[in-house]
């Protein structure tokens, strides 16, 4: 009996020892801070597309090769791309360097989860426009601090099928004769084309179908008419007490959105379109849709799948998909009175945009090594590779000029003020739900009309009231409910 007890005791002790050994090894692998005494290991959190398309591997290999003699190496943090630094960082499980959009990074900055940086430490500093730097600037006690390094600008883009352009576009859809179809330049023209496609196909096909509830994609119907997210205070810093979605003639723009939703598929109301836009553009059901530039590969690959299913080889399918998929900025002109069915006076389109960049975790133990990494990752060579592989629009002016095309166009729009950047304050978290609900309801109103139900937004006054209510909800969420 005593022997059995002794054996059992030994067994339990050894299993515990084995378990603890396993704990140690797994954990070391996960935290990845240092692989030996001499080498500093940085954990880099990049976005999924960069990983999927092989850019992250290329960046890490290049950095590790360049810094192998300096005792620094970088590894993939291998975490979910939107993992919460505030939750993981303080306990040592977060990344050292993270690549995210300005709203996300700056909400970390407000809570001091990322470090304030000195612009002069970065070689790219002078090549990046002030608008992009502003997205990563925070004001504290009257002082301004830069908390991340801008890498690329994001704005909603129009993805369309070049091979599905109307045959007569040069004669009927190019009034100004500039060899660019009017519907890629004017929302009124795009509306009229969409109307024509729906009518001719008996409701089987559509022109533009986009996610109407997505504020990021649809903000042009507000911003182009004088609306904005938050105002500025006397120091030029974001003032989240001034919620401006209902300012100017925003109601006119929103009536324009309601009108456009009427020629879209009902999928535009909810999240279905965000999932199926790639396939529906690829199979020709939709002529075009709206998304961000980093989703180009998804549209491209779905279109290539269609060609492969038709019997093309992989190479041919890729080539055809590249030829037939167009990506341009959203049409630059909107009707001044918000009525898309007329071709009257116009206003310039102002879209919502964002700047993605690199931030350095406040919990890193290797600040200087992180700066070295960010400097390397924002070098001309790496940003050029990033733009080539991922199709992003870099904030570095030299690379934007070199790349030309859409990249230069987006860069130009940022400098010209056609992109209204997402405010870099934590309060921006509160805008999405109220505005998403309103946008969805406005789009739904077009279908209520079709179904003979009572419509809610019949005129500017009712739309203005809805915008004011949404702005009030946002204000309450920021200042009343959250306190």
């Amino acid at each position, binding site marked *: 009996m005593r022997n059995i007890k002794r054996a059992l005791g030994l067994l339990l002790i050894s299993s515990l020892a084995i378990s603890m050994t396993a704990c140690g090894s797994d954990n070391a692998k*996960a*935290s990845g801070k240092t692989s030996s005494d001499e080498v500093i290991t940085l954990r880099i959190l990049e976005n999924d597309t960069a990983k999927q398309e092989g850019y992250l591997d290329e960046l890490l290999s290049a950095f590790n090769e360049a810094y192998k003699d300096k005792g620094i190496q970088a590894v993939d943090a291998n975490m979910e791309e939107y993992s919460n630094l505030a939750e993981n960082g303080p306990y040592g499980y977060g990344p050292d360097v993270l690549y995210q959009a300005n709203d996300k990074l700056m909400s970390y900055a407000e809570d001091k989860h990322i470090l304030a940086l000195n612009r002069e430490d970065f070689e790219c500093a002078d090549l990046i426009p002030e608008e992009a730097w502003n997205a990563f600037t925070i004001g504290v006690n009257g002082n301004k601090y830069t908390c991340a390094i801008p890498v690329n600008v994001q704005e909603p883009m129009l993805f369309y099928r070049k091979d599905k352009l109307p045959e007569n576009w040069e004669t009927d859809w190019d009034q100004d004769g500039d060899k660019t179809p009017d519907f890629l330049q004017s929302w009124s023209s795009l509306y009229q084309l969409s109307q024509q496609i729906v009518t001719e196909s008996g409701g089987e096909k559509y022109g533009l179908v986009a996610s109407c509830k997505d504020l990021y994609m649809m903000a042009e119907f507000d911003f182009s008419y004088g609306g904005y997210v938050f105002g500025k205070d006397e120091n030029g810093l974001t003032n989240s007490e001034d919620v401006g979605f209902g300012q100017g003639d925003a109601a006119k723009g929103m009536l324009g959105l309601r009108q456009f939703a009427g020629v879209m598929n009902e999928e535009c109301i909810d999240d279905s379109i965000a999932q199926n836009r790639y396939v529906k553009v690829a199979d020709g059901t939709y002529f075009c849709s709206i998304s961000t530039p980093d989703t180009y590969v998804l549209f491209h690959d*779905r279109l290539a799948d269609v060609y492969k299913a038709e019997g093309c080889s992989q190479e041919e399918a890729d080539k055809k998909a590249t030829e037939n998929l167009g990506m341009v900025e959203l049409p630059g002109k909107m009707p001044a009175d918000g009525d898309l069915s007329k071709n009257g006076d116009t206003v310039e389109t102002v879209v919502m945009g964002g700047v993605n960049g690199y931030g350095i975790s406040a919990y890193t133990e290797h600040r200087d090594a992180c700066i070295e990494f960010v400097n390397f990752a924002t070098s001309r060579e790496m940003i050029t590779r990033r733009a080539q592989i991922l199709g992003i629009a870099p904030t570095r002016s030299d690379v934007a000029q070199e790349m030309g095309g859409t990249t230069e166009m987006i860069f130009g729009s940022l400098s010209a003020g056609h992109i209204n950047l997402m405010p870099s304050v934590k309060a921006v978290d509160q805008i999405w739900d109220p505005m998403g609900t309103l946008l969805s309801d406005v789009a739904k109103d077009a279908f209520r009309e079709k179904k003979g139900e009572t419509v809610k937004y019949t005129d500017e006054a009712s739309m203005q009231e809805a915008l004011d209510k949404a702005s009030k909800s946002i204000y309450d969420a920021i200042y009343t409910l959250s306190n």
Partner: protein
Amino acid sequence: MRKERLSETVVTYIALILVSFIFFFPVLWLVLASFSASGSIYDYEGFFPKSYSLGTYIKLFSDTQMYDYPSWLRNTLFVAVFSCALSTVLVILTAYTMSRFRFRMRKPIMKTTLVLSMFPSFMGMTAVYLIMINFNLINNLWSLVLVYSAGAPMGYLVQKGYFDTISNSIYEAARIDGASNPTIFWKVTMPLSKPILVYTALTSFAWPWSDFILPNMLLKNRDLWTVAVGLTHLGETEFSRFAAGAIFIAVPIVILYFSLSRFLISGVSDGAVKQ
């Protein structure tokens, strides 16, 4: 009379076929979706994919750069097997002790565990997270094994109920023959308790095999994710991969149920027949 019986049988069969179809259809749909050639849910003709291929399954196991399914499967298996082994031992020992021995505080402990087991496990998630951080067990598969096994004895009541049904005279006879407590446990109770052992092992395996909340909280590193966590992080255009992953995760559990069901059935029938 014969006609009546025939019509009764026909009606019963029709009802059964109808009910089976209602339950089977979603499974069939998921299986077919996993073979969709395009991979997207949005190119279906009606309910079903336009074209089929084995591509998704091949991709599931070969395209591991972003979504390392084989590694998720290994992690899930590791957690489920170790949790199953430890939980089964702990639950059976707890249930046996509560059933066979009378000691001070037995009743209060039973009442306390009964009350505690009524609270949903996720109520203590924040506490578990903080404890695991302090033990340096975040990003460690053993942390899951530890939590699942430690919580398992709370649900000992079913097993205790089973042990209660074993006649006390068997134990008394063994004791008269000079058997010690461990001998009684190993040589008398265990052979009589195969069905409850199988039941305990199966439920202890199935819970960690499909749990999402705990691994999602404790495992930050993609390589350490379990299948349930990994599948929820698949990209928005990866529906058929999700379907294939979900189908494949069901395979081991189905095999387990089929291979162990005879023990369950024989155990039940052994107890039912008076010899």
